[in-house]
């Protein structure tokens, strides 16, 4: 048991380290961006001392490393600082966006994960059957279509033509849950198109892999019902790969949805980060990338933990 704890802690530490390095990379990256927020805000109409004045006002005239250190100091005290662009509190700026992003991600995941598992397992069970082949083709089609295509087509039919769902997700803090669902319907479907297919294929692959193993054959020879073979014998050994698949998909759902946000005007984190980069709004960019990287690392960590905790060799050492 302690061994497991140790492994997890080790992974965790590694994650933190990665996070730290990421923060440096991003900071340096944004530093390298030509122009700075002062110029970005004032535009080409700016006169040199205009810019200088704004820089001073924003404290951009301090050397980079001090700003970086101050930033960390703030973060460690749970203060993400304020946006340089509009002097608003980043924490509040982000909580709104993040909650939206997560809501969208979870909605999409909540539907696609179970479906993916179900379809995947079925496809694995009846592999090379008509079902398997057709599902295979369909899913491949889904992954192949660029998101904006799916998105626009959805809008055309379900919003413009049928008027079932709004073409833009106009949600805010006090939108009711049901209403929210209605609002994110189209973006969620768009995202599902991509990850559902992807996950399903992965699940299928890993299950098929399992089914090839000797103990599954043994289970059959013991006269176990097909269903039991899958549930009792295959699945317990499939958690690790499946957890991984889910983690990757979720990570994608959180960080990879800029296009969808743009098309559906969904006030998510991606859009915020892109804008902030264009504004050179370093603290916001930092905060966003920390969240993104954090999510990615956390999800992978969880996947690791799952695979550790479902591995009997580690769970029940000799």
């Amino acid at each position, binding site marked *: 048991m302690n061994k497991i704890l140790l492994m997890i802690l080790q992974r965790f530490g590694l994650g933190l380290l990665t996070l730290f390095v990421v923060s440096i990379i991003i900071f340096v990256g944004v530093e390298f961006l030509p122009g700075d927020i002062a110029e970005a805000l004032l535009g080409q109409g700016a006169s040199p001392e205009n810019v200088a004045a704004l820089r001073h006002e924003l404290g951009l005239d301090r050397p980079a490393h001090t700003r970086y250190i101050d930033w960390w100091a703030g973060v460690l005290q749970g203060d993400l600082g304020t946006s340089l662009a509009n002097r608003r509190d980043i924490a509040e700026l982000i909580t709104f966006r993040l909650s939206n992003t997560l809501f969208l991600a979870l909605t999409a995941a909540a539907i696609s994960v179970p479906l993916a598992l179900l379809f995947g397992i079925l496809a694995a069970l009846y592999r090379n059957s008509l079902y398997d082949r057709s599902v295979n083709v369909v899913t491949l089609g889904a992954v192949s279509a660029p998101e904006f295509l799916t998105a626009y087509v959805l809008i055309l039919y379900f919003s413009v033509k049928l008027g079932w769902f709004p073409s833009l997700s106009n949600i805010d803090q006090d939108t009711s849950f049901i209403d929210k669902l209605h609002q994110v319907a189209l973006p969620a479907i768009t995202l599902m198109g991509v990850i559902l297919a992807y996950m399903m294929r992965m699940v299928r692959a890993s299950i098929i892999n399992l089914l090839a193993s000797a103990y599954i054959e043994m289970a059959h020879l013991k*006269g176990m019902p097909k269903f039991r073979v899958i549930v009792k014998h295959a699945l317990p050994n499939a958690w690790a790969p499946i957890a991984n698949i889910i983690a990757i998909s979720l990570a994608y759902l959180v960080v990879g949805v800029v296009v969808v946000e743009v098309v559906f005007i969904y006030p998510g984190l991606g859009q915020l980060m892109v804008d902030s980069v264009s504004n050179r709004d370093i603290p916001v960019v930092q905060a966003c990338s920390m969240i993104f990287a954090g999510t990615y690392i956390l999800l992978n960590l969880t996947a690791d933990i799952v695979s550790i905790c479902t591995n009997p060799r580690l769970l*029940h050492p000799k």
Partner: protein
Amino acid sequence: MNDPLLEIRNLQIDGESDEIWHEIIKGIDLHLDRGEVLGLIGESGAGKSTLGLAAMNFCRPGCRIREGSIRFDDQELTEQSELTLRKLRGVRIAYVAQSAAASFNPAHQLIDQFSEIPVVHGVKSRREAEKDAKDLYGRVLLPDPDGIGYRYPHQVSGGQLQRAMTAMALSCRPDLIIFDEPTTALDVTTQIEVLTTIRDIVREFNTAAIYISHDLAVVAQMADRIMVLRYGELVEEATTREMMSSPKMEYTKSLWAVRSFKKEAETVASAMSPVVKVDNVTAGYGSEDILKEVSFEIHRGQTVAIVGESGSGKSTAARVITGLLPPRLGDIQLNGKILPKSFKARNKEQLRHVQMIYQMADTALNPRQRIRNIIGRPLSFYLGLTGKQKEARIRELLSLIELEPDLYIDRFPDELSGGQKQRVSIARALAAEPEFIICDEVTSALDQLVAEGILRLLDRLQREFNLAYMFITHDLATVKAIADNVVVMLQGKIVEQGSKTEIFSPPHHDYTELLLSSVPEMDPDWLNELIAHREKHGVMSSTSIS
């Protein structure tokens, strides 16, 4: 009672390999009475397992029964629904697989996997099942019968797993158990114990059994009747004793003949300094030592056999000599000169003189290189041969290993049989014109006839080029056949070493004794006598010594 328990008529099974179906069981008849034990033997590819599984009307993916009837207890299995078959499997027909380690689900405790059979089939309640399990664990002589069931497969040794699986097979007291090479993966000493268990248990429950193995001697101990298969056809069938005493078919005779090969004279260690000297070597991975203060010498033209069971450190010794695993203490000498510990530090000349032949010929040859390149590379790499010279030499080597150059030079490894692959890897080693070759279990993956061929070849080459061999094996038969000197290893230490005659003639070191006695012999009564003997002189097991 007279009607047979299992009756297979004109069974034909097709197998698919890259989208082509071809026959792998070509119309076999088989019948088995209640309580009878039938032995199926044959080389790999003979279709033993396929036939065995067919007895439960089960086909692996990529196989299909084309024709024939399988009657089990007056039911025609080929006509039964999946459901009825399922109800049959595990309850009336059970299966014991070759590798218990792989066939137990790593995710569940042994006892769960045991009791799920009776519970799912509604034969017993969970509680009864567990009780029964513990009882059976006891009968198959598992240590701590009450506790062991609650362990996970990886927490139990291979031999014990094999017993546990036998117990599991008995969970519903089936009429028929199919043993598919249940001991092949085990060490000889463990094999004995498992064999005994299986035989006793089968007798005790008066279960009919089909015992599949490639090892005649083993089958001889277990079976009342033996069927010899080859390429999916029945070669010969007779009661065990009959077949032992007077095999009829040529092929069967040749199987018997395997152990006939003996190296002529033992080469005595020449006075001059040894080719290779392992000097008091201690080595291992991480903190633990796998080799402990090991020393031995190998002289020109001489074969030293390193004998031991898995984990005895014999392969590690090879890795140390090749420099893959730098020793912690001691060193390796080549012709009296100390070799750098790591192969990275050795020069071409030193590398050239230490060549290696691997157990798995399939993985030993790069599947993407033609035989020409595989053999040609050392020629150009070490000896700088090119063009015509090289080509000529490659062909020369091919003929040396008895492969028709024109036919084989352009082939890829996967276009060769196991034996041919092994020959090619021998040629590759020879190409370097070494003084010393390490043969790591070179025959254990091969069928007996093929192995025989390889041994003869190696012997001939040794005499021709006055090579020194280090022959790593667990199979004492092979040792008897080819060795001049023998080194017996146990848990990283050398228990005994000396000339073959010394080792094989009493008095033996206990462990050597155990090893020797554990090698099955072509005598149906061998096992009984052995057990009797051992009971008289107190039971020994590999663990009780060291």
